[in-house]
């Protein structure tokens, strides 16, 4: 081990010597370079735009999504759509004024870029029809009578048509007081070819539709993925406000802690520069801000502050020896080089491993986070000491530090008890209990959404109120799971196909959570009955192909593709809970496994619930894969740096405990594991590993000097433990205020991050020494009574 560790440490040390010399002999040059790059990246960062896309949220190589993408062109309207409900306060929708508004809103929506016009559905679009059986035969027509002129007679005619169209509960509310316009969207703007700008779309919906047509008598309700994203992007300003509040609090507390203006402003400035660089680099590489990765800049800030405080603190300690700022900064740089670099590199690589998850949003988050951490290496490990070498911490801070080092610090004395065998026992037992509780509670952790509506927004947000309105007044749910029945070309209307699909639907409708389903088979059956005077006894798939063909003379859009090789079966669900989707997908896969043939194959899945099922499956697996990778990388890097497995255990165990308890907290709060919340725990590992590495490095140095564990730990607390405690508490205080955010997603993250900051801190301060005590009995201590000071000088 000795030879191996030499081989690892030596290059690190050589690199440090080189870098140190270059930095501290060319400070102005370094600062100018940084200034230049910062200016450039500020300009880049100012151009960063929200960048959301439906496809990015779903796992692109999951078989369900691959199937969807294969048939995407044939499945218009089943991917991504917005529902606009126009409601009246009057008696019902059959009034001249209301119909006028409805028509104009339909037109307005028609012209919004990105809307799939041919697939739009509203009683005012020509593809929505009514049918009826008379003695003469089958009659039908568009729901809006061709001679509609707003008169009472026309309205009566309209009312009748609506009743005969079967759209009550679908496009017209059950209570007849509102109507829906289904607006399917393309993933890109067909005119410009660029990705659909959800922010712009949402704004257009607001300006062109809601603002223009909402009035005392008419209310507009809008739901759909695009609207959620739009609202989140709108809420970004709120999110930024809360970041700013956290920033201010951190700055104030940092000043109170360090009593040094330079020692407060410079680390905060460097941390902000790190954030700017990160955003600038993201933009330069062509990425945008996704509403679900809005937290990454704050995380970068938090990690940067954590390191910054450590460095400033060390500078302060070195200043006690020698007040020259240049000297103190240079020494502090050297002292913290290895732990700082290790922590940041392991954070960076650890975050990067999130790339294994097959969801683009998370992959982009991995890039953003690891880039942010890489940037911190430059801004907080390099720029910060250089800047501090000019400014110094100030006399006030030095005096404060001197006074504090002379006091014994009762709190630290008490805490150092955890480094004794008795204390270690208590700490470890408490940790084990917490672990058991956490494991037990974490079983309640759900994948996917637990509530209806958009969990990212508050229950009383406009979106969720709109969603509740639509759910209450209409019969078709917004949770749609589409199974693609695939046949050879021109075979989708054979008896075998339709009968097979019919049986499949019957099977699917028996699965718990399924509300209803619709497919071409239903059309054929109903029209066949229609061709027989509406007699329900004829509502079956005929074995006679000519009868089938006659029944499918007019097929509503979306139930068949042009070369007759695809029949979408649209399944409406009661909810989109993970258990429901899971049950549904495995039941359908079972059916497919039993009954698929070359003539008829059932492929999953499209529709928002289909994608969610795929996403849930990927997340369920990814959850543990992700943690395995992050922990693996971080442990490996710690092992390389510290060259001892027991050390790695001491550092990693408190983090693991935090991860388990965080899962338990999520289960307790009813926060499901989704694309947005999946990376949280991995990010928490990155935040916490810094504490462990710094504390352990310092502890080792005191142990090497010959102090007994308790004394060594006491000194560690006084030097490194303080900034750890400070950072943990400060960031937690800054973040806890997020619970007041109108964006529920931010509020949830606030709680989780607060928990992780605090618990990581506690774990590093209380559990790490306990583990060190238990795992590393110390051979041959020198004078245990000797209380060594940190003075270095001549011998």
């Amino acid at each position, binding site marked *: 081990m000795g030879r191996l*560790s*030499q081989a690892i*440490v030596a290059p690190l*040390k050589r690199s*440090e010597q*080189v870098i*140190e*010399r*270059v930095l501290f*002999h*060319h400070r102005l040059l370094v600062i100018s370079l940084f200034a230049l790059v910062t200016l450039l990246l500020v300009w880049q960062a100012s151009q960063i735009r929200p960048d959301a896309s439906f496809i990015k949220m779903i796992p692109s190589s999951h078989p369900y999504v691959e199937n969807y993408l294969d048939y995407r062109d044939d499945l218009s309207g089943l991917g991504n759509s917005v529902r606009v409900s126009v409601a009246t306060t009057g008696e019902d929708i059959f009034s001249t004024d209301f119909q006028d508004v409805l028509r104009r809103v339909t037109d307005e929506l028609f012209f919004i870029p990105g809307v799939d016009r041919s697939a739009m559905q509203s009683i005012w679009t020509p593809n929505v029809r009514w049918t009826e059986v008379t003695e003469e035969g089958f009659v039908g027509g568009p729901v809006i009578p061709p001679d509609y002129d707003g008169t009472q007679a026309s309205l009566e005619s309209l009312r009748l048509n609506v009743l005969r169209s079967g759209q009550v509960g679908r496009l017209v509310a059950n209570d007849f007081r509102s109507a829906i316009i289904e607006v399917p969207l393309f993933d890109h703007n067909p005119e410009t070819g660029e990705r659909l700008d959800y922010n712009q779309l949402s704004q257009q919906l607001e300006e062109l539709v809601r603002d223009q047509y909402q009035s005392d008598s008419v209310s507009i309700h809008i739901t759909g993925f695009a609207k959620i994203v739009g609202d989140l992007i709108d809420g970004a300003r709120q999110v930024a406000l809360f970041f700013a509040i956290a920033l201010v609090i951190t700055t104030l507390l940092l000043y109170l802690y360090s009593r040094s203006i330079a020692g407060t402003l410079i680390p905060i400035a460097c941390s902000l520069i790190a954030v700017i660089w990160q955003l600038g680099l993201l933009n330069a590489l062509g990425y945008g801000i996704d509403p679900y990765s809005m937290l990454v800049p704050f995380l970068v800030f938090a990690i940067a502050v954590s390191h910054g405080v450590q460095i400033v603190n060390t500078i302060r300690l070195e200043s006690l020896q020698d007040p020259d700022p240049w*000297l103190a900064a*240079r*020494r502090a740089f*050297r*002292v*913290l*080089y*290895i*732990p700082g670099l*290790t922590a940041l590199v392991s954070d960076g690589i650890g975050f990067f491993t999130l790339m294994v998850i097959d969801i683009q949003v998370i992959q982009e988050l991995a890039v953003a986070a690891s880039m942010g951490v890489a940037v911190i290496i430059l801004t907080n490990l390099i720029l910060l000491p250089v800047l501090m070498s000019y400014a110094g911490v100030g006399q006030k801070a030095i005096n404060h530090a001197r006074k504090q080092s002379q006091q014994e610090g009762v709190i630290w004395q008490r805490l150092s008890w955890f480094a004794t065998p008795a204390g270690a026992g208590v700490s470890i037992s408490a940790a084990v209990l917490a672990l058991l509780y956490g494991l037990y509670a974490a079983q309640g952790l759900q994948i996917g959404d637990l509530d209806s509506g958009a969990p990212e927004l508050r229950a009383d947000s406009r979106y969720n109120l709109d969603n509740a309105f639509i759910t209450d007044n209409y019969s078709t749910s917004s949770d749609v799971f589409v199974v693609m029945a695939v046949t050879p070309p021109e075979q989708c209307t054979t008896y075998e196909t339709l009968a097979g699909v019919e049986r499949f639907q019957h099977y699917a409708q028996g699965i718990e959570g399924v509300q209803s389903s619709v497919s071409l088979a239903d059309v054929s059956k109903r029209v066949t009955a229609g061709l027989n005077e509406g007699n329900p006894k004829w509502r079956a798939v005929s074995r006679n192909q000519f009868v089938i063909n006659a029944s499918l003379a007019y097929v509503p859009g979306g139930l068949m593709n042009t070369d007759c090789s695809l029949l979408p079966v649209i399944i409406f669900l009661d909810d989109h809970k993970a258990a429901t989707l899971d049950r549904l997908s495995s039941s359908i896969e079972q059916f497919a496994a039993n009954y698929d043939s070359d003539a008829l194959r059932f492929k999953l899945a499209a529709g928002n619930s289909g994608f969610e099922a795929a996403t849930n499956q990927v997340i369920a697996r990814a959850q543990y894969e992700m943690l395995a990778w992050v922990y693996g990388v971080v442990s490996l890097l710690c092992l390389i*740096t*510290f060259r001892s497995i027991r050390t790695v255990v001491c550092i990693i165990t408190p983090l693991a405990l935090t991860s388990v308890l965080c899962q338990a907290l999520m289960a307790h709060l009813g926060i499901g594991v989704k694309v947005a919340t999946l990376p949280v725990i991995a990010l928490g590992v990155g935040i916490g590993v810094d504490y462990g590495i*710094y504390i352990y*490095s*310092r502890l*080792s*140095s005191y*142990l*090497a*000097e*010959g102090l007994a564990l308790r004394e060594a730990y006491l000194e560690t607390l006084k030097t490194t433990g303080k900034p750890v405690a400070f950072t943990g508490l400060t960031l937690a205080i800054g973040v806890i205020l997020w619970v007041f955010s109108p964006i529920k997603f931010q509020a949830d993250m606030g709680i989780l991050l607060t928990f992780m900051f605090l618990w990581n801190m506690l774990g590093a301060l209380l559990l790490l020494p306990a583990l060190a005590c238990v795992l590393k009995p110390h051979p041959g201590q020198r004078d245990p009574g000797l209380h060594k000071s940190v003075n*270095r*000088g*001549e*011998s």
Partner: protein
Amino acid sequence: MSEQQLLLILDKDAASEVALVRAAELAQRQQLPLTLLWQSEADKAGLWTQQLQALKSSDIRLTELCLADGQSLQKRVIAFTDQHPDTLLIKASEKDHKGLLPPLDWKLLRNATCPVLLVKQHSQWQGGPILVAIEPLAQAPERQALNRSLLQMSQQLGQLFNATVHPVIAWDTPMLGDEPEQLSDEAQLQRHQNATAALLSDTGVEADSILIGEGPAEHWIASAAADHKAVLLLIGTKARRGIAGALLGNTSEQLLDRVDCDLLVLPGALGETA
């Protein structure tokens, strides 16, 4: 073995006077030939001809050389040292750094193949103390050879000027995360102490107190020199040139800027000297 030479670089600046005095003293005590190298014709006709006269009238073998216009000082120096390998280059140190390029003194230090004495002060070397900066824990044979050369030369000069010799050693601040043996202050000091003692006994040099302190080197050595009011500091140099020189620099150059006493720099390429 070729004869020892003293080569003194002069220009018309009054600051050069200290170098002249020092060179004269050395030439006197060791009966060495002294060559004056004027940087330009104009310098030759200097103001302080008094000293020069005194020198000329002494029994020191004097040669006067002059740089031709456009001729590079370094090249001339190198030509000289090629001819006379056992030379000591003497110059008064220049204070100012012009622009981004390394100052003349630094260039000389980087390119010299012989020891260079940069004179900063009038005060006598007589009585000392003389400080010699060594790296006792260095492993590479060139460094160890350099250490020995430094010690030997310092002993010679100490005997010559009846000065006390103090080895001065800077040890680097321990890095957290390093090997445990590196982290203990006590162990570090002990190690350095023992290595220095071994080196001293190895070279047969007798030293007065050993000054060991925490680096960076340029800080500790300079502060030790100031504290002890050293008259002369001996140090070796790696003579990094070009990009390495621009980025990393050399400790001897840093010390040149920081210390008030004279600086005698031994190039790293130098092997054992007599």
